[in-house]
């Protein structure tokens, strides 16, 4: 169970695409992919088309591991109800 707000830019994760048999989800705004169990950031699918041909050196851009993590919410199942 995770927050509906993408930690990257606030995209609507209720509209995210589930992938890898439900183990991952992909935000509809930028395609960022997260692990549904740990909340870990898995992939920015845009890096190939961004970084492949960049011809300018940006002093303000430092590509590296993204520091995003899904906000996982505690929950329990009680009497057939999901309590968040």
């Amino acid at each position, binding site marked *: 169970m995770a*927050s509906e*707000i993408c*930690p*990257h*830019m*606030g*995209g*609507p994760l209720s509209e995210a695409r589930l992938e890898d048999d439900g183990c991952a989800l992909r*935000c*509809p*705004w*930028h*395609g960022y992919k997260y692990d549904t169990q740990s*909340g870990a950031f898995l992939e*920015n699918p*845009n890096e190939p*088309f*961004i*970084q492949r*041909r*960049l*011809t*300018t050196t*940006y*002093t*303000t*851009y*430092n*590509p*590296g*591991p*993204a*520091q*995003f*993590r899904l*906000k996982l919410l505690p929950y329990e199942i009680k009497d057939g109800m999901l309590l968040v």
Partner: protein
Amino acid sequence: MKYAFRLADQYYDYDVLTAVTAYLDCEHYAWLHGRNYDHYEILEDGPTTSRIIQHSKYLGFTFKQHHFREYLPPSEFRMASDVPFPIQTRTRFTASAGGGVRRTVDVSLDLPLVLLPFRKLLAAHLRRYDARVYGEDAAAAARRAKYLGKNNWTWAFRPSQFLLHKDAVMEAFRDEIARGAPRLVAPTAGHLAAAEPA
């Protein structure tokens, strides 16, 4: 034959920097606007110019367009495209009273003679197309305002975030960025926690 017209002239309830950062956030074009664009790729980039290939879907057809784009700081953009006929656009974001932004888009089409009689139909179609695409951006800005705070552009200046012409944007808006984070509009603690990097 040249045919020029104003495509859009509208006001939005967010600031100029919010509009500029969203425009230059190239990562969202293939996703948030995926219904309108099949493919988006940077072919060349310079401090304030770029060449992009974009597959745009109009009227059931997909056009492989080469876009030559220029950023004129702080908040003007020019674009020239080659397909299906030469198109030039000039987009300006200017501050309006009350802290909002006025967005104007002027278009010039170089139409073949055979299409000239249909120029107003084409303009109407392009206005609907623009309203749909920019409407997605405006809705995204409204959602960010709701959950992350009004005029929230801090995401754009994280070191790991790529933005076309990012150095030029940060120079043009240096004072505004230095003044700090945008005004928050009563987000909940849960919303803030969700937005914080791990």
